[in-house]
């Protein structure tokens, strides 16, 4: 027969001082673990949110990011009139040759400069990305050296507010609007006219081509066709597939989360063990009494394991609550593929919190296993005699 849970719960409450210290300790470990995972989750989410399953992105074979890709004008001319590409109501092919550039800009908080991405887009390119919506100001007018900036990016860089100026060498680009890209990778970009960008930045070629095939069969055909054409040396893939691979930046953060989680949990296991040993030691007589009353050794082990798990789970809950306020907090770091600032948000999702909770219970059980076994092994007579 198992001991009632109430017994464990009351015991945890009655020793509130050591309980509090252990709970807080475990809470901090869980909070750090959950937050780091939330950070990695945020980076992955911004990639996962990007792209339309119907679109195809064409980049140079071998390039890892759009900013390092080159698509020549001849390539564009070749691809532009392929039959597989869908046409809009005016009969124009839905294809956009774009230029992705890196411009260094000063941070708003005065901690130096960082790279930002500027995308030269075309009207077709904007139609292909309906998740990008203007939230403030107006769109750029080609030929007037105007740029529209992602609102989230504008919060991080000086001069990115409406009416501000982005300096690029001798050129000045006026910021005329802010857009919101619904948490996608475009939230780290500034947009301007593609041909104007080519002339200002002195680029003969484009970086990438985004297009919409007529249907699913056309999409598959187009991908194989471009893949096979050795003269082009281009790689075509679904836009969503391309972005799902742009998550290299999350890898070191995940590794850090794993390492820190492990190291800190070892410390937390020691702390939990200490508390549980003390708990067992001060209850030696109680344990003896329980044995006399007929509770089996197994029941005693289970009882202390449950108590340790309960203690740790309380820590886990507190830890998740500590991490929760940071959900949605926007931050940024350098993307390892484009070498430009990428803006993303902490994502403390329910499954991450569940993971944190499970993590805390594991700490609790690991920490209370040895003390529980010790309690169960106490000879009844000796236990009853102890004070």
């Amino acid at each position, binding site marked *: 027969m198992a001991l009632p849970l109430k017994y464990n719960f009351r015991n945890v409450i009655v020793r509130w001082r050591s309980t509090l*210290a252990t709970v807080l300790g475990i809470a901090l470990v869980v909070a750090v673990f959950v937050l780091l995972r939330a950070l990695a989750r945020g980076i992955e989410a911004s990639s996962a949110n990007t792209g339309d399953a119907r679109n195809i992105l064409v980049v140079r074979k071998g390039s890892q990011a759009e900013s*390092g890709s080159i698509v020549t004008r001849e390539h564009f001319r070749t691809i532009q009139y392929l039959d597989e590409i869908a046409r809009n109501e005016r009969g124009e092919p839905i294809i956009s040759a774009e230029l992705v550039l890196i411009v260094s800009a000063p941070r708003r908080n005065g901690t130096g400069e960082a*790279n930002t991405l500027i995308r030269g887009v075309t009207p077709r390119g904007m139609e292909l990305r309906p998740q990008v919506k203007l939230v403030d100001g107006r769109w750029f007018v080609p030929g007037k050296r105007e740029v529209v900036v992602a609102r989230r990016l504008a919060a991080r860089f000086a001069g990115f507010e409406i009416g501000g100026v982005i300096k690029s060498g001798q050129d000045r680009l006026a910021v005329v609007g802010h857009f919101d890209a619904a948490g996608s990778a475009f939230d780290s970009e500034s947009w301007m006219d593609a041909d104007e960008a080519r002339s200002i*930045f002195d680029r003969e070629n484009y970086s990438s081509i985004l297009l919409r095939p007529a249907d699913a069969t056309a999409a598959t055909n187009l991908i194989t066709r471009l893949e096979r054409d050795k003269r082009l040396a281009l790689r075509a893939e679904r836009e969503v597939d391309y972005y799902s691979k742009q998550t290299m930046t999350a890898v070191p953060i995940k590794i850090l989360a794993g390492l820190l989680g492990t190291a*800190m949990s070892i*410390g937390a296991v020691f*702390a939990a063990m200490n508390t549980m040993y*003390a708990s067992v030691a001060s209850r030696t007589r109680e344990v003896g009494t329980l044995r006399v009353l007929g509770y089996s050794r197994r029941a005693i082990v289970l009882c202390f394991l449950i108590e340790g798990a309960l203690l740790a789970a309380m820590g886990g809950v507190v830890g998740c609550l500590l991490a929760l306020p940071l959900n949605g907090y926007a931050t940024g770091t350098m993307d390892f593929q484009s070498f430009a600032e990428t803006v993303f948000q902490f994502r403390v999702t329910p499954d991450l919190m569940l993971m944190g909770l499970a993590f805390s219970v594991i700490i609790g059980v690991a920490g209370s296993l040895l003390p529980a076994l010790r309690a169960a092994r106490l000879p009844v007579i000796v236990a009853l005699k102890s004070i």
Partner: protein
Amino acid sequence: MIIATFIAKNALRNKRRAALTILSVAVSCALLVTLLTLQREMTIPPESEAASLRVIARNKVSLAQPLPAKQLAVIDKIPGIVAVSPFSFFGGNFREETVTSFAQFAVDPARFQNIIVEGKIAEGSYDNFIKDRNSCLVGADTLKRYGLKVGDQMRFTGTFYPANLDLRIAAVYQGTVDDRNVFFHHKLLDELLGDPGTVGTWYLRVESADVANDVIARVNKAFENTSAEVRAETERAFQMSFMSMLGNVKVLIGSISTVVVFTLVLVTVSTMSMAIRERFRELAILKALGFRRRELFSFILAESFGLAALGAFVGIGGAWAFWTFLDLQTLTRGFLVYFEVTPRIMATGATVAALLGLFSAIAPSIAVARMSVVKGLKTLD
């Protein structure tokens, strides 16, 4: 000596608890030292005397924007410069690798020789490198990591440039702060790209540290109001700016370190309180025998300080040994070369541990000071 023995016996009376406390302090100290080192490595690039004489000039727009090759003629005329070479990051993936695990730069070998002066040729000869347009100069670390030797071919798939490289190893260098890079002929790159007339950056060495700032100003001024304005800065400043692009990572590591310290305090304070509460009766007897509060406090302090110090010794020493004797480069696959636990960082860790010992003695001492002897003698727990 009697008092010292008394304290030591008390501390080790509950051996299991003492061991657990020492171990948890040790784990936390090791973690703290590791985090501080990581933060240092990420914010301060390794320093070298030769690096302070080197200047990197990039396009003012950004590092990714190329510079016209014809700028060389102008830079050559600027006084105070010993040598200048084009310096273009190739960003190729070695063999079948999918990430750029070490850097390759296109340089002018004859000019470059006078720029990395601290590098020593370990194998092969620099002259062979100059003579053969399809050869390369490889860092000793990379050579060792892949088990290569002079005469081997190295194949790279270009990720930034639409070109692939196939280079023969002509010489091996070592003795610079980063012995991982591969250098090859800029002429080869030009050829592969169809002579675009551009370079990535300019790499130059100045006569002395005194003139460095003047040279930087002169280089910047020389290209003002041209179509390719230049931003020159010392190699160190350049690396710092690269690291500052990592943004909030530094703050992140800083806050994690704080949390670790806080957890450490919690654990030790709780253990000390447990140890003292268990001993209330004895302490009451000591009080009754005539020991004063001050003396009782010093007993408790010595005990908690001793435990914290032992934990710190194990943790900090362990972390130092781990990071010093570990072959980091093989383990992190070339991501980390230097992970130096400096004396300063160890001192920080030790200070935290010392404060911890002091801090965790306070709460139990107050409890002991407040207790009345009669009540203390009655305590059972």
